[in-house]
């Protein structure tokens, strides 16, 4: 039997590919046969990701997705694609009574608005091939709040709602939209979260995961599934990846 779990002949556009989950997804997609287009803000780190891609024909663009002009320039340069992964994101803990417009703009801008506006232009400019798969990231914290997390979790809740509506509007061409909901993954963002003092007792927090804190590879494997033909009947869903966190321990 031929496995549908591969990305041969697919072109996948991945935002936020300069580090963490996005970087691993880019590398893993290239290992599964995809041509990968990566974007990120940090030129040096993006080129590190690019150098780790397997195979030929990949593209790399330094861009600022929250800047309308730069975002549109980037999208207009892209070839037509079979997959889009929005892994650009930011964590910015702010207590609710201190939330100012700048915090709101920053978090919603990158986590939500840049995804929505990128997809709009991809569709309008007919950059998405038939059967294209779109993958977004929410967070287990949408249903498991933490102090200071209101903006971040709200931006992720917004993405969940958006993805389901998107799925409804794009199914005619067998295009699909799904959300991956990871719990804690050991990435630079996770280290930053710890440094910001969100978890006073890191060991106690990590002990709540029966299968331990996740690895970027665990998320990349889920993204590969959602981008591949193996998930061709899957749309408008959320895929929870949590190492058993929500079964309780």
């Amino acid at each position: 039997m031929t496995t549908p779990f591969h990305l041969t002949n697919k072109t996948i556009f991945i935002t936020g590919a300069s580090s963490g989950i996005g970087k691993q997804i880019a590398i893993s997609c290239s290992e599964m046969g995809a041509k990968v287009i990566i974007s990120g803000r940090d030129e040096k780190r993006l080129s590190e990701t690019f150098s780790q891609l397997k195979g030929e024909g990949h593209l790399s663009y330094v861009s600022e997705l929250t800047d309308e002009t730069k975002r549109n320039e980037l999208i207009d340069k892209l070839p037509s694609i079979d997959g889009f992964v929005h892994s650009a994101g930011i964590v910015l803990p702010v207590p609710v009574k201190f939330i100012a417009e700048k915090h709101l703009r920053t978090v919603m801008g990158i986590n939500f608005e840049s995804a929505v506006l990128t997809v709009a232009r991809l569709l309008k400019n007919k950059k998405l091939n038939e059967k294209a798969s779109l993958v977004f990231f929410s967070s287990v914290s949408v249903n498991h709040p933490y102090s200071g997390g209101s903006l971040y979790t709200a931006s992720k809740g917004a993405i969940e709602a958006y993805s389901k509506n998107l799925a409804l509007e794009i199914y005619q061409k067998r295009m699909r939209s799904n959300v991956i909901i990871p719990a804690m993954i050991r990435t630079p963002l996770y280290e930053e979260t710890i440094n910001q003092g969100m978890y006073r007792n890191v060991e106690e927090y990590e002990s709540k995961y029966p299968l331990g804190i996740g690895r970027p590879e665990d998320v990349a494997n889920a993204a590969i599934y959602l981008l591949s033909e193996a998930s061709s009947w899957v749309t408008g869903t959320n895929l929870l990846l949590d190492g058993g966190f929500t079964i309780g321990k």
Partner: protein
Amino acid sequence: MDINELIGKLQGEFEDIPPGTLKPESKISDIEGWGSMHALIVIALADTDYGVTIKGDELRKVQSVQELYDLIIEKQKNPSE
């Protein structure tokens, strides 16, 4: 600003910490009920009221209210650090 102004502001934000608890020499780790939410409030207050960015790991090195005050003053003088 002086340190009493900072203490007044912190006291105003920390509704769960009894008035008069905070003094310049107060050890932050000894404040009853101190938690991650208080740390977030300190970081947010430093940003909104004093225009300085304190990172979580910087705050964890701060032992007392006096040291917190010194850190804010230092950062106001050297915005790049």
